[in-house]
């Protein structure tokens, strides 16, 4: 599903000061995998997630997503790939705060050109699946953190992506809600066969995945297989 070869990324802060964030990453994630990335702040794990999500570019190496080389895509092309292949779950949920839960979930389908009725029906279906049917017409500001993250997950999976990238999905949640969210993510991975890549600080979150990739100073330091 994901094939990374010698990925380098450098941020030029100014002319004399460059930050070499990724120093040659080689990584393969198989289709249907449930993988977490752990590492200290500034270790480059979020940057890697951004590159995998085609939100950011890389300087060196090559990145294949589902066999397709992701390089020098135009904004329109990358938007299309994102819409089709990738769902995002963010730490701060990133719901659009003036849209209801239903509209937020339906948004990826809107950009895909799905008719209004059909996408609203589908959105309601997914909200129902995540136990939020009664909250469909509420605004994000009227919901709890756990509910917001569930809306975000519904939004990420509604377009039936091949890959979900979750950046600290439990970072803003208490431990009980975190566990609920992780259960949902695992369920999605198992039932929808969507590859799941989670960046996290929390060991107990990472331990629920099949594989933990440890990051240190821009390099993968170790890979732990959790499935015995």
């Amino acid at each position, binding site marked *: 599903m994901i094939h990374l070869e010698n990925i380098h990324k450098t941020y030029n802060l100014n002319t004399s000061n460059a930050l070499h964030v990724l120093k040659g990453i080689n990584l393969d994630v198989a289709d249907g995998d449930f993988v977490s990335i752990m590492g200290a702040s500034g270790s480059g794990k979020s940057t890697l997630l951004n590159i995998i999500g085609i939100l950011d570019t890389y300087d060196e190496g090559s990145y294949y997503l589902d066999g397709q080389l992701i390089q020098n895509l135009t904004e*329109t092309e990358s938007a299309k790939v994102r819409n089709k292949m990738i769902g995002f779950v963010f730490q701060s949920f990133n719901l659009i705060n003036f849209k209801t839960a239903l509209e937020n979930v339906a948004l990826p389908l809107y*950009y895909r050109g799905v008719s209004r009725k059909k996408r609203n029906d589908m959105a309601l279906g997914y909200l129902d699946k995540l136990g939020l049917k009664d909250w469909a017409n509420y605004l994000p500001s009227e919901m709890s953190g756990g509910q917001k993250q569930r809306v975000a997950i519904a939004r990420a999976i509604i377009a039936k992506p091949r890959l979900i990238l979750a950046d600290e999905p439990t970072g803003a949640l208490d431990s009980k809600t975190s566990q609920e969210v992780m259960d949902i993510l695992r369920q999605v991975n198992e039932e929808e066969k969507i590859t799941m890549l989670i960046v996290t600080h929390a060991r107990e979150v990472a331990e629920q995945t099949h594989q933990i990739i440890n990051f240190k100073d821009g390099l993968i330091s170790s890979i732990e297989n959790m499935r015995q």
Partner: protein
Amino acid sequence: MFDLDTWQEIWLTITRNKMRSLLTAFGVFWGVFMLVVMAGFGVGIKHGIMDGVDHFEANSTFMFTDRTSEPYKGFQRGRIWNMTMSDYEAIQAQYAHEIKYMSGVIFGDRSVTNNIVRSDKYGSFSVMGFSPDYDHINPSRMLQGRFINDIDIKERRKVCVIGKRVANDLYAPGETIIGSLLRVNGIYYTVIGVNEAISQNIRVFGDAEEMVSVPFTTLQQTQNCGDEVHCIALAANSSVNIAEMEEEIKTLLKARNNISPTDSQAVQAFNTKQIFDMFNALIIGINALIWIVGLGTLLAGIVGVSNIMLVTVRERTQEIGVRRALGASPWVILKQIMSESLVLTVLAGIGGIVLGVSVLSVISNILANSPSENIPLSNPQISFGIAIAALIIILISGLFAGWLPSKRALQIKAIDALRDE
């Protein structure tokens, strides 16, 4: 391309911050409103000016004499000369096909004050000798009686047409004017008519309302002018180039009166084309001013929209970033920002047009109900063409206003949404 959802998105973002949208739209609204009202006034001023001249023969010229400026055929420079009836008849004969109306003009004696006397009432008014045709060249409205006719000219009758103000000054209200006797420069004339000016804005020999008009042949006789003619007024058919004809007649007059062909002073003339050109230039100038100021005001409004949209885009960085992450292409974002700007400006602009037209029609009604001779303004309305032009300007403005904010929005990458944590 524009389905219900798009409109809903646009409407939602505009109404999300109602006060800000309203204030922003007000800039454009005001600009368009001012533009429409001022354009209407431009039209009104044009009407006002043209209503005052449009009965005047536009293709006419007035020719009179001055001292010669060059010695010629034994005559010294500085000679005083006059046109005569034979000149008049020569012109009449030579340009029989071109001339529509022709009038001899004699200036009455102006040396006496209180020259017009009616029993115990008197006043100072100008006295002019005209042909019947003069009333076609510079028409007056007959309030009573008639103008000078051909028999008056032929028989050198002592009849006169008095202006409205002359009548008001010398006659009591309700008094019979027609047929009464009036002493004009010492000689009694029978009043045959009372007139008032139509073309308020062109006064060739003074105000017709303060004038006593008599047959020019009569005046020739009573003032001992012989067969002199002080001025020849003529109107040519519309196909004739009056300026060229004027030059030809000048040459003719010079040849007939022993004046050097190169003398530029001896024969004077002015044609109404010059006056109409001047009025037109004035109207064009006023309109240019109106459009410059109006478009300037509108531009200020557009800059306002652009400015606010820029702030909005900055505020919406996270939202736009999320949309990009969810698969919105740059084109979709561009379309959305542009549409917001367009909808805002077009709504405000149409509001401005509607209110502007309403205000104009109210002013128009007020003016129509209380016509004032002193305001050169009548029927200030904008034409359909101006309204369409305003609409097109608004559309372009909307695109213009949305351009910078859209460019800013396009620079927002999906990753910015994540960074803003």
